[in-house]
C-alpha cells in the first residue's frame, strides 16, 4: 500500500539534488547523497563470490607491515604453476592473483609483490585510482599534461597523489551525469585506432553514441597496454587493429619487448586484460551489446530503473544480465557460459603444454651449447606463441566475450609453439 504510494512519488522524482557536484568533487560519498542507489551498489564491489572461472574468492592472510591486507584473492600462480615458467624472470612470476571488485583496485596494486621485485612508474595509477582530479591538478588544469607528469614519477610518489579507487567522476560529467571518457590512454588509443580506419581526430566524448560510451568507459582500463619509451607513456597498441595478431604485429614492428625470458632468453611480451579488444571481436559487440548491459544491467528501484553499479560477474546476476535478451532459464544460461569456458580452458591448456615443451627444449638446447643464432627462430616462435596464449589467458571472461576468436588465437599460439619445436630440430 505504502509501497505503491511511494512508487508513484518516486517515479516523479528520479533523484534529489541534495548537494552541488563540481568537476573537483572526487569523493563518491558526496555524489552518493544525490544518487544513493548507485552509491550503495558501487560500495558493494567489496563482495567476493566465486564462479566456475571468475568472480573471486576471499583468502584470509595474516597482515604484515609490508602488506596490511587481511584478505586477498586466490593466487593464480599456485593454481597453475606453468604460469611461473611462462613468466620466468618477470615480476608476474612472483605474484599474480584473480582480479576482484573495483573497491580493491588501489590497495591490490599497492601491495602486490610485483611492486617489490620491480620499480614501477607512476603510469600504473592510470587504471587503479580516481585520477581525474589529481591529473588536472598536476597539469594545472590540463588533463594530458598531468598524465604525462604522473607517468614519469616513481610509483611511490604518484601513489601519494591519489585517494580513491575508480570513482563517479571518472565516468560521469558532474553536471549532466552523462558518461565521459577521462583516461588519456583510451583517448589516444581509440584515436589511433580510428585513424587507422580512416577516421581522423576521433574524440569519443563528442563523437560516440550513448551505447558506445557504455563500453568505452570500461575500455578506459580493461585493455592491453604498454609503457612507451623512457617517458613511460601509457600506450594502447591499437595502431594496426584490436585483434591479438594485429597487436603482435605492431609489437614486432616496433621491436618492443617486456622482458627477456629467464629460461630461454626469448624477448618476451606480457598481455594484460584485453577485455575490450576481445569483446570487440564477439557477436555481442557486433549486436550492439555493451559491457554495461551485462556488467551493470538495469535494475528496478521502485518506479525507476537504475544501472546496477555493483560491477561484477554477470553469472552472479543472470536474470538481469542475460534474461532481458535471452528467454532461457538461468540454469541453462549458466551452462551455456560454462560450456564455452570449459572449451576455452581445454584449448588454453593444450596451448600451454605446448609452450612448456618449447621453453623446455630451448632451455635444454641453450644449456647444451646452442648459439643465439641457432636459437633465434625458436625464440621468436616462443615470443609469439606466448603472447597469443597470454592474450586469451589474461582476458578475464575465459573465452566468453568472443569464443571462436579466442579459439583462433589459441590455434595460432599452438602452431607457433609447434613451429618453434621444429625450428630447433632443423637447426640442430
Amino acid at each position, binding site marked *: 500500500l505504502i509501497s505503491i504510494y511511494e512508487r508513484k512519488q518516486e517515479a516523479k522524482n528520479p533523484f534529489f539534488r541534495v548537494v552541488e557536484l563540481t568537476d573537483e568533487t572526487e569523493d563518491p560519498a558526496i555524489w552518493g547523497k544525490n544518487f544513493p542507489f548507485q552509491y550503495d551498489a558501487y560500495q558493494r564491489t567489496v563482495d567476493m563470490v566465486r564462479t566456475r572461472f571468475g568472480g573471486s574468492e576471499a583468502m584470509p592472510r595474516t597482515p604484515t607491515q609490508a602488506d596490511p591486507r587481511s584478505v586477498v584473492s586466490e593466487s593464480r600462480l599456485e593454481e597453475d604453476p606453468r604460469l611461473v615458467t611462462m613468466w620466468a624472470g618477470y615480476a608476474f612470476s612472483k605474484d599474480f592473483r584473480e582480479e576482484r571488485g573495483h573497491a580493491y583496485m588501489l590497495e591490490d596494486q599497492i601491495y602486490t609483490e610485483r611492486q617489490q621485485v620491480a620499480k614501477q612508474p607512476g603510469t600504473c595509477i592510470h587504471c587503479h585510482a580516481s585520477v581525474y582530479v589529481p591529473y588536472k591538478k598536476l597539469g594545472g588544469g590540463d588533463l594530458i599534461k598531468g598524465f604525462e607528469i604522473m607517468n614519469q614519477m616513481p610509483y611511490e610518489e604518484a601513489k601519494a597523489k591519489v585517494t580513491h579507487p575508480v570513482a563517479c567522476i571518472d565516468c560521469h560529467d558532474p553536471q549532466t551525469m552523462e558518461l565521459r571518457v577521462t583516461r588519456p590512454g583510451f583517448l589516444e588509443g581509440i584515436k589511433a585506432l580510428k585513424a587507422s580506419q580512416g577516421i581522423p581526430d576521433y574524440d569519443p566524448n563528442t563523437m560516440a553514441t550513448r551505447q558506445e560510451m557504455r563500453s568505452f568507459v570500461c575500455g578506459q582500463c580493461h585493455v592491453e597496454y604498454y609503457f612507451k619509451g623512457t617517458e613511460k607513456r601509457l600506450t594502447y597498441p591499437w595502431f594496426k587493429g584490436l585483434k591479438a595478431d594485429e597487436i603482435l604485429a605492431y609489437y614486432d614492428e616496433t621491436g618492443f619487448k617486456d622482458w627477456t625470458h629467464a629460461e630461454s632468453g626469448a624477448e618476451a611480451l606480457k598481455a594484460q586484460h584485453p577485455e575490450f579488444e576481445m569483446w570487440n571481436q564477439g557477436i555481442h559487440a557486433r549486436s550492439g551489446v555493451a559491457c554495461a548491459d551485462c556488467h551493470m544491467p538495469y535494475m528496478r528501484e521502485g518506479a525507476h530503473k537504475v544501472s546496477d553499479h555493483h560491477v561484477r560477474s554477470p553469472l552472479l546476476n543472470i536474470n538481469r544480465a542475460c*534474461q532481458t535478451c535471452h528467454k532461457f532459464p538461468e540454469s541453462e544460461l549458466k551452462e551455456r557460459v560454462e560450456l564455452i569456458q570449459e572449451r576455452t580452458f581445454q584449448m588454453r591448456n593444450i596451448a600451454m603444454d605446448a609452450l612448456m615443451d618449447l621453453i623446455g627444449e630451448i632451455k635444454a638446447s641453450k644449456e647444451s651449447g646452442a648459439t643465439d643464432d641457432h636459437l633465434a627462430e625458436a625464440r621468436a616462435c616462443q615470443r609469439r606463441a606466448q603472447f597469443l596464449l597470454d592474450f586469451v589467458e589474461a582476458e578475464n571472461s575465459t573465452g566468453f566475450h568472443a569464443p571462436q576468436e579466442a579459439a583462433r588465437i589459441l590455434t595460432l599460439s599452438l602452431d607457433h609453439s609447434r613451429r618453434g619445436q621444429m625450428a630447433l630440430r632443423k637447426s640442430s
Partner: protein
Amino acid sequence: MSMSLAALVPSKTSKSLLVALLITGAAVGSVGGVGLYTFIYARGGSYLTNDPAACANCHVMQDHFDAWTKSSHHGVAVCNDCHTPHNFFGKYLTKALNGYHHSMAFTLDNFHEPIQITPRNRAITEQACRDCHQDIVDAIDRFHDPDKNISCLQCHDSVGHQAD
C-alpha cells in the same frame, strides 16, 4: 460451466491453480482485501478495457508497452488480442485472474524480473495467433494432432514486442 472452464483453462495444473487462487482470495480476507484495494487504486480496472495504454498504468508494463508500439502488430492487435482468449467468458475470466495476480505481485513486489510469461498465458497467446492466422498456418499444422502443433513463438516471439 465446468465444460467451458476446461476450455478456457488449458491444463489441469492451471485449473487447480485457479481454484486455489480463488479459495485463497476468499479465505484470507485481508490479503484479498488488499489485493482488491490495489486493484482499484493502481487502476487494475484498466484490465477491463481494451486500451493498451491502460496496461501501462502499471509502470512495470511500460517496457512491454513501448516494445509493442514498435512491433509489427502495433496497428493490428492490442494487448488483449494476444493476451486474452478470443471468447467472451475466457476473456474476462483471464482478465480477472491476471488482474488479481498482477495486482498482488505488484503490491508485494516479489515477482521475477525480467517478467516472464506464464505457461498458461503463453498457451493463450499461441491460440490467439492461430485464431487470427487460421488460414495461413493451416497448411503447416493440418497434418498434426493439436498437441503436436509447432509453436509459433519459437520463430515469431517478437511480433508483439519488438526490441529497439
